[in-house]
């Protein structure tokens, strides 16, 4: 409290507060990935609907998804999905530190293990789906 009895209140913008600091901007970029994860879930939901409607419906859906608009949308989703993965794995040492005896496993080891597992999972999905 200041000398005249009025508490000092620092002004913070309610809507644009995160623009003033790169750390806040990265935080918001991370949080906004959820919009695109949700969008992708919606695409998968529509895919199931079209698949349940039969061969023609499925093939029309796939045709649309690989058209110009579908490709642009998927590239944007892919960019945000990758950002989500990286930001998710980068905080794993803080979310679940591994203690061995008196020592803590270095954060880089935990993050590195997650990136390696991510790569393996990606190759496994593409392989199991017959992409190569």
């Amino acid at each position, binding site marked *: 409290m200041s000398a005249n009895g009025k508490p000092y209140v620092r002004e913070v913008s*309610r*809507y644009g507060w*995160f623009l003033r600091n790169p750390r806040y901007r990265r935080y*918001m970029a991370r*949080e*906004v*990935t*959820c*919009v695109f*994860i*949700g969008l*992708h*879930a*919606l695409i*998968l*939901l529509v895919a*199931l*609907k079209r*698949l*349940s409607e039969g*061969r023609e419906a*499925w*093939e029309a859906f*796939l045709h649309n*998804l*690989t058209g110009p608009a579908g*490709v642009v949308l*998927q*590239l944007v*989703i*892919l960019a945000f*999905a*990758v950002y*989500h*993965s990286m930001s*998710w*794995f980068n905080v794993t040492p803080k979310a679940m530190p591994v203690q061995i005896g008196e020592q803590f496993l270095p954060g880089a080891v935990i993050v590195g293990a997650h990136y390696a*597992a*991510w790569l393996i*999972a*990606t190759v496994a*999905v*593409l392989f*199991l*789906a*017959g*992409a*190569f």
Partner: protein
Amino acid sequence: MAKSNKPIIWGLFAAGGTVTAFLTPALVLLTLLPVFGVMPELLAYDNLQAFAGHWFGKLVLFGILFLMMWHAAHRLRVTLHDFGVRADGVVAVAVYLAAAAGTLAAVYFLLRI
């Protein structure tokens, strides 16, 4: 002691975030590859129909979709607050209802395949 549903919601958020982090880029790649002339065999109608027609395939697809939607819903709730939307009660009901509706829709479509 007061009971809270926070651990359940947060547990779904964390599980969904992890599943999404490992799988979503690969799933998007799967439907992007045809553009580059690579057609994953799974995307052929007969193969996908067979996969989603099997109970195990249904379970896998349901698990992924369910967790993805609850993850996105919970993070969207927090994100809207961060963007200055302070009606958390309304937002919470809206996003969780959307995730619940999406979950039910996934079950409905999967059972029709």
